[in-house]
């Protein structure tokens, strides 16, 4: 052996998986921080089961993280197939192959304890899975993860993950001193002995890696003077809510939205706000609406099932023109669906879910960085237009980490105190401007402004009325606000050329993967461009003009759509992806969709494949192969 080989890469994707509770998540978060501190561009995605303690040693128990690290920043999406997998057992590893996220020639590091384990079925499945990996072209390195960890601690369940951090630092040629700092930070609330043990294990893993890995990688970071931060989208939402000047977050626990409230609960009171955990989703929005009516700005954070419960209050916000911001961190649906995984299936619900005609603003964050800024915009629109603003995020943004330019908090606007000055006795609660529908709102405490706001149809006086003329007028005034807002929006920026063979249209967090796919295609000489729609209601101006310069327009979305090849599917019966549905109605053009629901973010390569299929005239075929119901492998707690 002529010493280890150091291979230089511009980027690499590594997945770290264990049984739930074995700490692969913590290992991955720690390693991601090491990479971030080294200056690497970064995007991470959680691999997370829906249960806290699923049966161990099954594919369903796999828990961990995918990290895409790059020499460049920002990284805008999860990337393609994983180059490296570090697995604590073969079932966790198998789950990644089943998810179709691992490259054929991947490097697999796996704990070797299962090779000679007491349980025969484990030995067997370990052999079989490793054989499968090798057959498909992968390289397997068996690592004595458990054995080495046992040299330092009695319970390897609590420590293997730190050994793994050290091993990854060796594999990616990272500075172990940075890892020590990071680990001390990760365990800062624990006793010193816990920190010392964790550091010792990481150093042991690092040492093992240096001595035993024949090939090691280096993903150098391009140096930059721009200060950066790394956080997940829910943290960015929480920080953004504080910066935007919100006073109250009223919520009810729901995956994957809740962690934003965890962050807010910890920090909000230092800024004069607080989190109210209500008795249910309905009360959560009701409390926010009441606070907003009384003059403070409030938001509520939820996910799909919670959105469903909030619809009546959404209507009340619209009808009474009480400003309100709702954040919907989307997950897979319908019903409980895939609570920890991504889908974009709440778009139509956000737009049209409220009974009655209920015009409202719907906007979406497309990156973790945008999660920070979007609430300032949402709050401003809600207050200036007296409107309900729904902000859509998703499970990918919520739990993924991204490195982005540190926001300049010194620009946070000063907030004026509540204006409770008297108004003339005849001031109307809905003094609509007949052009724009806009009106000034009265705040309780303002002398002269006493009057009722009601969920019933009402006139400019706020009085309930039932006649057709004033019903028509009320609808018109509430609707015109959207048209007025649309006037202030810019047409979406086009990624690529403003004309060509194919235009991809996306919204939300698929932006990075779509643009990366477009870049790859354009390098191959394919005439394709893309846009990302930030405002879903009102839609931005200029869409029809943009669409008309392309031979074909197609949405790319994490939603279900019938495949053209499916039995019974015709032009009349096909259900399109939700964005395609909206756009077809808005521009009266034939817009196709590449829509599927894999429960994970889209990879640029799969979009690239679809681009090629489309231009070869074979598009739209989303693989809908029937899953095979395989017997679950033996578990220890059957």
């Amino acid at each position, binding site marked *: 052996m002529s010493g280890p080989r150091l291979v230089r890469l511009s980027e690499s994707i590594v997945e770290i998986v264990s049984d739930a509770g074995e700490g692969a998540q913590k290992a991955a978060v720690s390693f991601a921080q090491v990479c971030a*501190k080294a200056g690497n561009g970064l995007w991470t995605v959680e691999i997370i089961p829906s249960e806290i303690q699923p049966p161990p040693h099954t594919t369903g128990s796999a828990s961990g993280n995918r990290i895409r690290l790059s020499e460049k920043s920002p990284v805008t999406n999860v990337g393609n197939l994983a180059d490296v997998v570090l697995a604590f057992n073969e079932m966790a590893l198998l789950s990644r192959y089943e998810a179709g996220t691992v490259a054929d020639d991947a490097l697999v590091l796996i704990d070797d304890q299962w090779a000679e384990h007491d349980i025969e079925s484990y030995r067997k499945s370990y052999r079989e899975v490793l054989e499968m990996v090798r057959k498909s072209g992968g390289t397997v390195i068996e690592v004595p993860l458990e054995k080495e960890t046992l040299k330092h601690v009695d319970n390897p369940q609590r420590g293997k993950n730190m050994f793994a951090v050290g091993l990854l630092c060796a594999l990616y040629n990272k500075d172990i001193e940075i890892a020590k700092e990071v680990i001390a930070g990760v365990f800062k609330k624990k006793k010193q002995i816990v920190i010392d043990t964790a550091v010792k294990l990481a150093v042991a893993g690092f040492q093992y890696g240096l001595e035993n890995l024949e090939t090691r990688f280096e993903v150098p970071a391009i140096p930059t003077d721009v200060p950066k931060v790394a956080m997940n989208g829910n943290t960015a939402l929480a920080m953004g809510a504080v910066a935007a000047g919100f006073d109250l977050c009223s919520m009810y626990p729901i995956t994957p939205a809740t962690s934003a409230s965890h962050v807010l609960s910890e920090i909000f009171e230092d800024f004069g706000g*607080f989190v109210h955990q209500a008795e249910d989703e309905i009360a959560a929005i*009701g*409390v926010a609406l009441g*606070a907003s009516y*009384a003059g403070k700005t409030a938001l509520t954070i939820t996910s799909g099932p919670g959105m469903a419960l909030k619809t009546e*209050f959404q209507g009340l916000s619209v009808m009474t023109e009480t400003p309100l911001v709702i954040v919907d961190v989307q997950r897979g649906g319908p019903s409980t669906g895939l609570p920890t995984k991504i889908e974009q299936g709440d778009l139509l619900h956000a737009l049209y879910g409220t009974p009655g005609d209920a015009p409202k603003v719907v906007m979406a964050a497309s990156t973790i960085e945008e999660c920070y800024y979007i609430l300032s915009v949402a709050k401003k629109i809600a207050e200036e237009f007296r409107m309900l603003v729904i902000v859509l995020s998703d499970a990918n943004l919520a739990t993924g980490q991204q490195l982005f330019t540190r926001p300049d908090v010194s620009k946070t606007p000063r907030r004026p105190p509540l204006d409770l000055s008297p108004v003339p006795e005849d001031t109307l609660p809905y003094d609509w401007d007949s052009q724009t529908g806009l009106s000034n709102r*009265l705040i*309780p*405490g303002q002398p002269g402004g006493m009057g009722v706001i009601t969920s019933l149809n009402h006139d400019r006086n706020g009085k309930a009325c039932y006649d057709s003329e004033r019903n028509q007028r009320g609808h018109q005034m509430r609707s015109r606000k959207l048209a007025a807002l649309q006037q202030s929006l810019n047409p979406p920026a086009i990624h690529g050329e403003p004309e060509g063979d194919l235009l991809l249209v996306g919204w939300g967090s698929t932006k990075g993967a779509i643009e990366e796919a477009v870049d790859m295609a354009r390098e191959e000489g394919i005439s394709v461009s893309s846009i990302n729609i930030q405002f879903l209601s009102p839609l931005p101006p200029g869409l029809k003009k943009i669409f008309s310069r392309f031979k074909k327009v197609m949405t790319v979305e994490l939603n279900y759509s019938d495949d053209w090849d499916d039995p019974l599917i015709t032009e009349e019966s096909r259900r399109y992806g939700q964005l395609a549905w909206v756009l077809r109605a808005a521009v009266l053009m034939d817009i196709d969709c590449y829509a599927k629901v894999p429960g994970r973010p889209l990879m640029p390569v799969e979009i690239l494949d679809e681009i090629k299929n489309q231009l070869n005239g074979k598009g739209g075929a989303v693989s809908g192969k029937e899953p095979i119901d395989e017997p679950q492998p033996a578990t220890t707690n059957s």
Partner: protein
Amino acid sequence: MSSIIQECLDESCAIHSHTLEDYQSEIPRWCKGCGDHGVLASLQRVMRKNNVDPENVVTVSGIGCSSRLPHYLKTYGFHGIHGRALPISTGVRLARPDLKVIVTMGDGDCFSIGGNHWLHAVRYNINAVVLVLDNEIYALTKMQVSPTTPVGQRTNTTPRGSSLQPMNPIGVVVGMTNVSFVAQTATWLPAHLDETIERAWEHKGLSFVRILQRCPVFMPEAYGEGGLNFPVTFLENEDGIPIHPGLLKRGPAQAHNQRNIDQALSVAAKVDPAPMGLIYHNPDLPTYEEIRVQHAKRPDHETFINRLDNLMDRYAV
């Protein structure tokens, strides 16, 4: 000091003294003989007596006949949606502890569709006067069975007579953790109603008042045809609701210590005769808004920026 002298003093000395008209808005559109009229008048009298600035009062309601009350009271009013008056009120109090909040709901509104909010609002103990106008029927939707409808009552959804025992809402509230004020009164006892709302107004915390009243259109037989034939017991205590001698024609008085939760639970369990007066009172419990707001003090702009910047350091790489 007698109230007449006090009123004369108010009118001659105070510049901001309010008249009843200051609290009157539209002419109510309730049916003739509806108890809601009495509750509205009583509220207006209590507000005038306390000389409240109407702009500092928010009246919140749900949906139903009684929930139209904010339209007829000249304060800030929020006529919301069915069952959800209490979450809105909680939001108002959390945002603006300087505002006085009145909540009016019906029996279906509070005990049925808003049941979860009702229980939790009692536990939060927000500072609000919460009036449930209980006529034992869904009236605005035209006579459906409500949680308090007597067993056997024919309604449009129980044409052969309602089959379930009615709920005892007083028992539910007194059994709820953190309860601080529970009273029961009736619209056919106007002086008792005034005194009860007055005591509820003075209490710091959630004052839960169940007001018994009949619906002259759909439930005229409620409560023994509006009290004519309805057995009651008046709870007597020097800190409770005064029992004017005329009331004793309606039912006997019974000594009761409303500060004692065991006595209150025992009284709350009885429905026949119905206990009238202050059933439970604990004036010393902190309100939810006091608890929450004390930790959340908005810093000046510079401190705000510095804190946000320090927070950002946590995520700096």
